[in-house]
């Protein structure tokens, strides 16, 4: 670090400011008593109180959490098994598998949204919780598989051999060796999937129905219909929740790097 040029350090500090100032403003404004504009009119909690009373927002929050939990849970159930199944395929098939898995993650979300919307409308599927959960799984499932596979690749095949040598069947290896060693990756995938699902706007925007409004959709409509300070309060809460999520995920990742340090000598 001692050699790092000063220009780099200064640029880094400015970039950090650039990243944080908007968030700081947002949180600051959520305590501003002024109903219009950004001028400071005194400290207040009233927007948070109003928020807590707003039935539609509470409903949207519950919807978001339910959708995130279900889509992440289903993605985990399918994804972990799929990752294990894929890891032992032939090398030649790997590049195709990679392509298929990464495709849903690289194509712009809006494409996913319109494509799903068309399928659902043309097949006359009722837009609602089901369609939103399916939409979220389209990116959550590949995400889970990619994360679990990355961890799986770091596992020493000798562990499975050793377990077999000690009398384990393939089911024993799965339950006693593979899954416990994958646990940090599974938790990491779950947390990331949950957050991505909770935050998703674009896909949800296209495939949600009247009863399945999520929190981001609610925020969006609030921004569109008019700027009330309530949005600031809601946004501030979402920022803080994200921070807590990052903290938790760091904690889990730390533990996972500990385990991989133990296993690092191949």
């Amino acid at each position, binding site marked *: 670090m001692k050699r790092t040029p000063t220009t780099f350090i200064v*640029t880094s500090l400015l970039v950090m400011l650039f990243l944080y100032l908007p968030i700081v403003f947002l949180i600051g404004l959520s305590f501003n008593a002024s109903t219009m504009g950004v001028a400071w009119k005194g400290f207040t909690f009233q927007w948070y109180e109003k928020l807590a009373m707003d039935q539609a927002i509470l409903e949207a929050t519950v919807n978001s959490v339910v959708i995130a939990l279900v889509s992440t849970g289903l993605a985990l159930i399918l994804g972990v098994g799929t990752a294990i199944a894929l890891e032992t395929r032939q090398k030649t098939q790997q590049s195709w598998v990679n392509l298929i898995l990464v495709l849903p993650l690289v194509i712009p979300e809006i494409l996913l949204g319109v494509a799903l919307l068309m399928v659902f409308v043309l097949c006359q599927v009722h837009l609602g919780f089901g369609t939103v959960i399916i939409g979220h799984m389209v990116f959550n499932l590949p995400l889970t598989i990619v994360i679990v596979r990355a961890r799986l690749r770091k596992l020493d095949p000798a562990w499975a051999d050793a377990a077999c040598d000690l009398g384990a069947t393939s089911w024993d290896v799965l339950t006693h060796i593979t899954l416990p060693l994958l646990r940090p990756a599974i938790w990491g995938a779950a947390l990331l999937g949950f957050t991505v699902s*909770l935050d998703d706007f674009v896909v949800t925007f296209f495939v949600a129905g009247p009863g399945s409004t999520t929190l981001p959709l609610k925020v969006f409509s609030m921004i569109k219909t008019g700027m009330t300070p309530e949005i600031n309060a809601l946004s501030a809460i979402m920022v803080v929740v994200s921070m807590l999520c990052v903290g938790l995920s760091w904690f889990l990742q730390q533990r996972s790097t500990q385990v991989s340090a133990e296993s690092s000598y191949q």
Partner: protein
Amino acid sequence: MLNQRSDVSSAFPVKLSLLSTSLFLGLFFFLPLILVFGVSLASRGMYGGITWIPTWENYQRVFDPLVGVIFFRSLLLAGLTTFICAVLGFPLAYCLARVSRPWQLILLTLVMIPFWTNFLVRTYAWVLILRADGILNSLLIGLGLLDEPLSLLFTDLSVLVGLVYGYLPFMVLPLVVAIERISPQLEDAAFDLYASMGGMFRHVLLPLSAPGFLAGGVLVFIPSLGAFITPYLLGGGQNMMLGTFIQHEFLVARDWPFGSALSFGLMGTVLLLWFLLGRASVEKDPS
């Protein structure tokens, strides 16, 4: 060298989940994409529906000058976003990669937090800053630098700022990984061989960081090109990008065939770029 015995993929639940995943992605990812292609070749019905008369007309309309402007603006803004992210991201990534252990964790977490914060909320923060009675204008007027507010919101510049702000972490993280892999000894060796600070950066650090730039470039360029929230909230109706245009065609103009053709054009551009950059990164990074 796994053998038959320790091969856990033979367990029944494992096989079942592979099958279900294939079915799911086939049904809800590949089939919809094929449908988009199919619809892009159909005609628009009288009241916004689809008439199954095959036509190339939708693709011809993509080359209409008015559409071309949107295409061009999207490419330009995405390219500029990627470039600015690289310029701003590299110094930060270098500091993050070279700082000592406990600091690195703290700083990486600080970079990660905006990355995990709701995109909509982060973009909305810029609306508060840039609008006519927003923070920036209030500040400038308050300081006596301006007499009346600048119209900052709903310009190409505001979209650009929003895109850079939104996707900067995507550039920083791959760069940190790439720079961490470069041994500080290589820097020492360059200095030992008479390189100046600038020479060392140009001839050693930048070329060796290429995999990070490529990965970061893909991660920034592709979502910028297809962005919807940023141009919608910060660009307004005049400064459309592909994302907002597609949404407009689908939900406002109700011209699904044309929207599908646009979508397919966007996907083609993205996949072509991804393919080219993927090949370039394979060449750059033999490992």
